């Protein structure tokens, strides 16, 4: 069983800038092993940067970032990642199963995939309800199916942390609902962090909201209010209340876990 209290991600005073333009400043953040969190914030606020730091695709300018007590590059094999959109050639000759198998790649290996790899990939496809489509060309899948195939690819390596970049951006509402049901079920086995625009959904489903606008602040969803969201987006935002769990009395940023 998962140790609930263990922190799997630790940001310690992490800063990052693109060519001198600061994107994230002094981030302190811990993610527990059972986390189901959304990373929200305005465009250019550093959401994707936060994700790419955790993936080891970017390196902090200052501070320390540990995943499972290791550097992000060392911990890669324990992390699943679902990109927002794939810049892929619609004629690219791969099937859904081929794409899923890519989640089982390991460094320094030629030759084929093992039977265990194939089994894990098929299992991941089954969890995503795509078993019947495993031989279909990736480009012939619908938007929602394609996204589930990408999630299957991320799950094929049996990750302990799943990172998703705007998973709801390119799918229709029905597929979106399906997606959240799947994520909630997956959360019983792994920590999940997703970049999201939709705060309404966020507050209904997630344990916490990671607000990202150069600074990073974590709110348990039970404390999310209009004030907090205005703080995050640094301007007037009209919020549609989806959920009664939003507290009436507002909060301050001292309430960080």
């Amino acid at each position, binding site marked *: 069983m998962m140790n609930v209290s263990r922190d799997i991600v630790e940001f310690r005073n992490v800063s990052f800038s693109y060519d001198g333009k600061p994107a994230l400043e002094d981030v302190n953040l811990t993610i527990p092993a059972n986390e189901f969190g959304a990373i929200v914030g305005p465009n250019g606020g550093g959401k994707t940067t936060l994700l790419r730091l955790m993936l*080891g695709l970017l390196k902090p300018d200052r501070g320390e970032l540990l995943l499972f007590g290791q550097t992000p590059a060392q911990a890669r094999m324990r992390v699943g990642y679902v990109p927002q959109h794939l810049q892929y050639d619609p004629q690219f000759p*791969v099937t859904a199963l081929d794409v899923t*198998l890519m989640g089982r790649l390991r460094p320094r*290996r030629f030759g084929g*995939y093992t039977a265990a790899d194939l089994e894990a990939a098929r299992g991941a496809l089954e969890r995503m309800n795509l078993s019947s489509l495993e031989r279909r060309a990736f480009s012939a899948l619908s938007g929602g199916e394609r996204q589930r195939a990408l999630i299957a690819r991320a799950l094929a390596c049996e990750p302990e942390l799943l990172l998703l970049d705007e998973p709801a951006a390119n799918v229709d509402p029905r597929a979106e609902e399906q997606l959240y049901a799947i994520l909630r079920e997956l959360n019983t086995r792994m920590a999940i962090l997703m970049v999201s625009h939709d705060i309404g959904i966020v507050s209904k489903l997630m344990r916490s909201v990671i607000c990202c606008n150069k600074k990073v602040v974590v709110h348990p969803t039970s404390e999310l209010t209009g004030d907090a969201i205005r703080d995050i987006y640094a301007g007037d935002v009209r919020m549609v209340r989806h959920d009664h769990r939003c507290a009436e009395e507002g909060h301050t940023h001292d309430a960080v876990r």
Partner: protein
Amino acid sequence: MTPFVDALLNPDFPFLRHALIAGLLSSVAFGVCGSYVVSKRISYIAGAIAHCVLGGIGVALWLRGAHGVEAWWCAPMSGAILAALIAALLIGWVSLKAKQREDTVIGALWAIGMAVGLLFLARTPGYVDPMSYLFGNILMITRSDLWLILALDVVIAAGGLLFYHNLLAICFDEEYARLRGISVERHYLGLLCLTALTVVLLVSVVGIVLVVALLTLPAAVAGHYARKLWQMMLLAVVLCAIFISGGLWASYAADLQSGPLIIIIAGAVYLVSTGVQALRE
């Protein structure tokens, strides 16, 4: 057709037989490498490498003709291989380090390689016809060339198939391959080197100017029908063999150059196949 078959079997016409064997052998490399090139969309890099090959050939012929260096490393084929590999590594290095100026550098190498080749050929004593390198002359392939072609073929096919899964992942989604711990840089440079060797083979079959067409058209047609990369490769190999044999036959029947005929056949099939695809949708 029969006169063509007779000519193939005629012991006094070894060049036609050599040409066909060379074409069929190198089809394997063209199909495998061409499928990668088409799916990774780097055919313009193959074009630049091809034109740099003329630089290598020019320098090699000049060393032979003007300085009497007879060593194996300055045979035209060696010069071609060396120039192609240098061009591939240079382009690869630039595209990995400085993404935004990649096309400028590729265009510059394209022209410089060609210019260097023409100048060295001009300084080479005796008359060297650049046309046979530009538009190829598969009928000039000798028995000893065949061994070199076979060797290159084996290297390309082995490299392309041994690293199939990694290269597939990199062509499809470079970032994800990197996240799975695959060294994207090394594989990309390796793929460019395989492309460079394939280009050298292509130059001897259809010539520098027509390289890109024979590298990409069979794979592109195959891509219309394949759902997996290996299917695309297999189909591209078969198509390539058909195009080259057909071109040779047409060349014999019509007494025209084989290189352009091979390309015309490949282009025609590609156009028809694209039309059929469009009608189906």
